[in-house]
């Protein structure tokens, strides 16, 4: 298979206006990915699927990733005039990366038996702007997996034929796989708590005044 750079160059030539970025992936696995812009994502993927050399006809895996707002502090050397003298002073700068949701697809070719080409699309933010183009019209296999991303991460896929909750019930309002999801409180009975669970169990016990001051462990009949 050709390298990711070549794929990127050819795709950009085939789909005018497409902005593709290569997201490096450090580490021994070395599976870098292509970040597609939302406007041209479907066209680029269509190209990847139909191009005779690539023929990435098998969309194996589609999944969401939640990236929270991150603050990255780094030390920067800044030239400053201190007491009339120009000095290099170290200052901590805080960069705020706003959070976003990401959909990741792993494409393989069953015809040429190569892959994977990893492509990803990113939402604008984690609230109203959590919209992405759906790849279901191109790959049928994304149908349920995109529904799952919608269910668990709250990404709305434009162009999806049947976007409903798939795993949770319809009345459910949260998106449980998000990193900031708070699960419901059902910590009435936790005989072996520690760390997080201990905190939650304690909270639960304090909100139930009728049980306060009870014995250490009593089985009420």
């Amino acid at each position, binding site marked *: 298979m050709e390298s990711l750079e070549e794929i990127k160059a050819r795709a950009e030539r085939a789909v005018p206006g497409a902005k593709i970025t290569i997201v490096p992936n450090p580490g021994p696995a070395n599976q870098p990915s292509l970040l597609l812009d939302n406007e041209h994502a479907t066209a680029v993927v269509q190209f990847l699927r139909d191009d005779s050399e690539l023929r990435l006809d098998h969309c194996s895996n589609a999944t969401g990733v939640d990236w929270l707002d991150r603050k990255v502090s780094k030390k920067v050397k800044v030239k400053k005039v201190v007491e009339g003298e120009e000095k290099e002073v170290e200052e901590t700068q805080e960069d705020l990366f706003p959070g976003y949701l990401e959909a990741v697809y792993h494409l393989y070719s069953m015809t040429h038996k190569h892959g994977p080409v990893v492509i990803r699309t990113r939402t604008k933010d984690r609230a109203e702007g959590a919209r992405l183009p759906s790849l279901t019209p191109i790959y049928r296999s994304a149908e349920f997996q995109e529904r799952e991303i919608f269910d668990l991460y709250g990404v709305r896929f434009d162009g999806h034929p049947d976007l409903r909750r798939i*795993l949770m019930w319809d*009345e*459910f*309002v949260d998106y449980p796989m998000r990193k900031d999801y708070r699960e419901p409180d059902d910590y*009435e*009975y*936790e*005989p072996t708590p520690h760390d997080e669970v201990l905190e939650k169990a304690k909270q639960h*016990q304090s909100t139930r005044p009728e*049980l306060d001051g009870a014995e250490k462990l009593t089985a009420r009949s």
Partner: protein
Amino acid sequence: MSGQVDEGLRSELQKQGIWVTSTQELYNWGRRNSIWPLQFGLACCAIEMIATAASRYDLARFGGEVFRPSPRQADLMIVAGTVTKKMAPQIVRLYNQMPDPKYVISMGACAISGGPFKQGYNVLKGIDRYIPVDVYIPGCPPRPEALLHAFMELQRKIDGQKLTGEKKAPFLDRKQPSEFPVPAFGAHDLEPPANPDVFRPPVVERT
């Protein structure tokens, strides 16, 4: 009643070829040897349940091989596997549809307490939050022999149930509920998260 027949006299009579029993004993003997379980599997434990019913462990030796797909014909519900919050209302409904007397075996860690998955947002921490459970089998999953052991434990329980008197079996007591309210799907959780009439956990104080 069984208490009224002297054990010595009974065995003496048995030697003479006369078999004395009470209605209660006969009734319970019949019930405990023909428990029909509901054919109802949820997850991993259900496979062990099938293995128990298959030829190697053979639940038929205990009179429990007639797995009924309909709750209307079943005596015993083996809750085998993880009970999720999405599934819990259905299980309570199935339980309500079973005719009295009915029994519940909670098979495996997940059905008892949520087990390894109890940290999950969609996992019910034990089916005994909504319906009463007769026998609990710990294990993940329990061996088929452990299910047989629980089955025998249930048979012992049935054997000990009284037909009359103060301590008669709950299914004969009109005041005891035989159906339990079905929880509803809420915006964040099941509503209510547990039935306080059934689920009364002790308080464990841990620091």
